[in-house]
């Protein structure tokens, strides 16, 4: 099949409502969004605490977070594979090659992004915001929520970026998901598989979906940053 034919077939799959293709898209979105949902609260909390408190080892944690941002996803997948495999310490949970394992992996990948964005947002926030909240009687939780609310556009940018990493990564999903059709095959692992078989049509169609998702998240982020800049 020529590249032109493959592209035509890709459009047919996309707009013809091919159930297999849209099933893969659904699995991708489900796994990425659930992973992000799990990572958001601890990620934002950790970022806030790192920004607001000075304690021994803080600098090391900040460096570790920054290092994790650039950590190869396949290495995260490898570590999780070893932990979740039958011989691993969590093998009895029978998570390997399940959507739950992929959700866990994508939560781990999104976590440092959420920490780093929140840390940067809160550190860059006007210190008077927190002081004003405290002086007006806010307790630690309300003062924290107020500060995060005042920096919400920057924090949300972290959430969107975390989603971007989760939806577009292939290494971790392939290692611990196993690319099982109808179960753990997501957009990126399907593209890798179909291309390796010389079947370009589905790969092109899924690639187009991924590009639209990536563009969409970046547009949302640009809008949010614009909103933040208005204040």
């Amino acid at each position, binding site marked *: 099949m020529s590249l032109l034919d493959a592209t035509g077939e890709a459009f047919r799959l996309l707009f013809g409502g091919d159930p297999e293709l849209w099933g893969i898209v659904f699995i991708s979105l489900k796994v990425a969004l659930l992973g992000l949902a799990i990572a958001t609260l601890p990620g934002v909390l950790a970022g806030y605490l790192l920004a607001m408190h000075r304690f021994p080892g803080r600098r090391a944690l900040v460096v570790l977070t920054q290092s994790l941002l650039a950590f190869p996803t396949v290495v995260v997948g490898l570590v999780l594979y070893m932990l979740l495999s039958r011989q691993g310490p969590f093998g009895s949970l029978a998570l390997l090659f399940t959507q739950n394992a992929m959700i866990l992996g994508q939560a781990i990948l999104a976590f440092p992004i959420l920490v780093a964005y929140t840390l940067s947002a809160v550190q860059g926030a006007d210190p*008077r*915001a927190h*002081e*004003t909240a405290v*002086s*007006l*009687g*806010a307790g630690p939780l309300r003062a924290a929520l107020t500060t995060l609310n005042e920096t919400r556009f920057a924090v949300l940018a972290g959430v969107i970026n975390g989603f971007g990493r989760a939806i577009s990564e292939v290494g971790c999903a392939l290692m611990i998901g196993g690319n099982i059709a109808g179960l753990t095959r997501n957009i990126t692992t399907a593209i890798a598989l179909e291309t390796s078989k010389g079947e370009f049509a589905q790969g092109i169609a899924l690639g187009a979906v991924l590009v639209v998702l990536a563009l969409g998240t970046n547009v949302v982020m640009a809008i949010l940053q614009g909103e933040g800049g*208005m*204040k």
Partner: protein
Amino acid sequence: MSPLLRLARLRKSFGERRLLDLDGFEIEAGHAYAVTGGNGSGKTTLLRILAGLESGEVEGLQFEGVPLACGETHREIVYVHQHPYLFHTSVARNIAYGLKARGLRAAASRRLVEDAIAWAGVDALRQLPPHKLSGGEKQRVALARAKVLRPRLYLLDEPTANLDGEGRRQTIELVQALAREGAGVVIACHDRELIELPDMRRFHLEGGKLVG
């Protein structure tokens, strides 16, 4: 009658440099105090320590006769920054913030917020976000946001700095009104008109010591 706030000793250093070395002083309710001094004399730092926003070596700090730990905020003490920070929401919600933080329900706080809005003369601004306000309007909103809590002690950092004309006059009137209503008001300032108001008590900071 015991003073509103009493302090036996306060020291504050930044590295080798001792910024404040104050012997005891007292603040009484119903009076306004102007803390004067040159730039960098420690006026703002003094207010921030009293507000519990900054630490220092403090001995014998009492509020209404009850010991108060340094670095601890008190619900009867409210600090207002030189350039007040207004949250990114409407003026009305800014004013209601402290009441909400103290657990008052919206229905119960509505009347108090309305009173504070009327007191500060910001009725026409109630739905505006902070970036639409002038410096003087922000200052009045910040004073209303503090007053709605009915604290016993206001700590105001340069409330008329960078204001001119009507905004400055209105702010001075509001500051005077706070003391008339029975609260203690401590103001860090350079503004001669504010310092020389009748009944204004004065502290001057020089070389880290209080003079006068």
